[in-house]
């Protein structure tokens, strides 16, 4: 039989039971749409998170106190026998040739008060180098002073969202604020910078690192950020940094070096697993839809037993009958797949509009894979009913019996 004729017969057979076809088709389309939306969302999440970490910069290395092996996660303050100190940071900047600049970083939460107004802010204790290192821009006034890191001063630079809240309609420069009982003078405000790694830099307050150590009563740093000289690869700088710090920490490697590449690699693994899990969950609905199609095809074989007998009496071969029912199941699933791609596309467009940070379009490979999987579902689901149809004897089938 010609393929075009077989296709036309399959379309006619499916069209004859529109409601049943539509319901089966919807089952498949929902499964395909779910897979498509999940993979697209996972891709959007992956891109968002990767972009966030990419802003660290390929030429930046973060030194964190503690070992990854100790806690199993990126270590934090207080997880190492030796503190990571301002002196360590200074030694790295001075002692490792390939480092262009560096800055110590201490982070804490504290209440910021001014003229009866009060709000909690994230406080970054750092130095003047942070401005260049993180690509910040000063909106008014100036950034932190370039005096020695060990010397604190009672000054503060405010993120872009803070002045309107604390000094509505007023110029904050030169005004005094209270931070954890300390009186600090506002010397500058920052231009909007946005969110970075989940931290809204526009809501942060920056103070000299030594001042932050005094306010939070700690010697250790949250991390040291090091920027490499142009052309130096992060991997090449790791050993010299380790050597300097090990020597300062009595031979112990109680710190962790984090590079963008390493983070992205770890992240990739996590996001791969996440994507796989989401796709697997969504695929369950496609499997259920496959059972639905198999059931519909079994009903079709049962209902059309006499027709199968007739076709055989008119000269259809077993292969013709097998191909016919496989084609119907495949067509059913392919239509469902196409509808599912449409639904999935619309759903991801709606989600992208609602959550622009996760905005993503279904990848061409995902659309192709969705259609291929739906076609595969049709073939798998249709095989058993089609084989049952093929095996019918002409005489018994004409009599409406299956055995």
């Amino acid at each position: 039989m010609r393929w075009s004729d077989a296709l036309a017969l399959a379309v006619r057979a499916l069209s004859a039971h529109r409601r049943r076809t539509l319901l089966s088709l919807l089952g498949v389309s929902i499964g395909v749409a779910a897979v498509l939306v999940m993979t697209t969302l996972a891709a959007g999440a992956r891109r968002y998170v990767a972009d966030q970490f990419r802003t660290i910069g390929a030429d930046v290395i973060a030194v964190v106190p503690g070992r990854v092996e100790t806690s199993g996660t990126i270590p934090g303050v207080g997880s190492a026998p030796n503190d990571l100190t301002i002196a360590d940071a200074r030694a790295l900047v001075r002692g490792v040739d390939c480092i262009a600049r560096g800055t110590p970083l201490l982070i804490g939460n504290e209440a910021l008060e001014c003229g009866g107004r009060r709000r909690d802010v994230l406080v970054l204790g750092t130095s003047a180098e942070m401005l260049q290192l993180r690509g910040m821009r000063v909106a008014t006034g100036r950034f932190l002073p370039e005096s020695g890191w060990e010397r604190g001063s009672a000054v503060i630079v405010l993120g872009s969202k803070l002045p309107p809240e604390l000094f509505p309609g007023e110029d904050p420069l030169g005004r005094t604020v209270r931070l954890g009982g300390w009186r600090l003078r506002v010397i500058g405000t920052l231009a909007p910078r946005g969110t970075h790694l989940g931290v809204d830099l526009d809501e942060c307050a920056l103070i000299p690192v030594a001042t932050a150590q005094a306010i939070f009563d700690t010697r250790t740093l949250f991390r040291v950020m090091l920027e490499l000289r142009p052309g130096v690869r992060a991997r090449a700088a790791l050993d010299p940094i380790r050597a300097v710090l090990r020597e300062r920490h009595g031979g112990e490697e109680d710190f962790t070096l984090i590079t963008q590449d390493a983070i992205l690699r770890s992240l990739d693994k996590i996001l791969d697993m996440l994507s796989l899990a989401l796709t697997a969950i969504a695929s369950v609905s496609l499997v259920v839809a496959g059972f639905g199609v198999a059931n519909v095809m079994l009903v079709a074989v049962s209902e059309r037993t006499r027709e199968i007998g007739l076709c055989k009496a008119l000269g259809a071969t077993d292969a013709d009958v097998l191909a016919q029912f496989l084609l119907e199941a495949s067509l059913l699933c392919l239509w469902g797949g196409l509808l599912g791609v449409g639904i999935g596309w619309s759903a991801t467009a709606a989600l992208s509009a609602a959550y622009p940070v996760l905005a993503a379009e279904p990848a061409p490979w995902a659309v192709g894979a969705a259609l291929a999987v739906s076609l595969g579902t049709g073939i798998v689901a249709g095989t058993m009913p089609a084989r049952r149809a093929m095996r019918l004897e002409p005489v018994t089938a004409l009599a409406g019996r299956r055995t």
Partner: protein
Amino acid sequence: MIELVGIRRSYALGGETIHALDGIDERIESGEHVAVMGPSGSGKSTLLNVIGCLDRPTAGSYRLDGREVAGLSDAELARIRRREIGHVFQAFHLVPRMSALENVELGMLFDSIPPRQRRERALAALASVGMGPRAGHRPGELSGGERQRAAIARAVVTRPRVLLADEPTGNLDQTSGRAVLELLDGLHAAGFTVVIVTHDPGVARRAQRVLLMRNGRIVRRMPASELRTLDEALAGAAP
């Protein structure tokens, strides 16, 4: 030419073996018109199914135009059904979702005949049975007689040599039945070998020869003109 030698067809039914055909020896010449009669369960339809390659004999030899059919593969049997044999059934067996024209075309689909040629042949076949104006109607919109005429058009459209009809007038009123029988007579006159299974002596008398069956055997062969009633004919048959 159809040659049957020692044809048996047995079924296992509930632990018992049923001999639907129990040693059939028969020879039907090309262009012959033969009626098969017998009481219910005598094996008439089974014989027709074996001749039509819809069923395989359990034992014996079946030669169609000199070619042994009994040992052919399923695909080869399908080819014979497609090209050499036309079937007309009591229950018409038209596909309800297809028009009369599409039903007539159905058999040609399996022979990969191009669409235009298929359509021309189907329209000509329908016209030849007086169904041209009803070609676009579905079976549900046709009378019983019209359905059977469409089914006859479907049986002859592939130009087979043998036409097998199983109770072709069984579901029809007298007028429609007569029209169908006249069609079959015409096909026989046109050179088809026609084998009809019937209960009706009136139908059988239109044939040249009648085969009387009982308990899976042909118990009497007689000229159709000598047939009066089935009971009387069987009374004169061998035990």
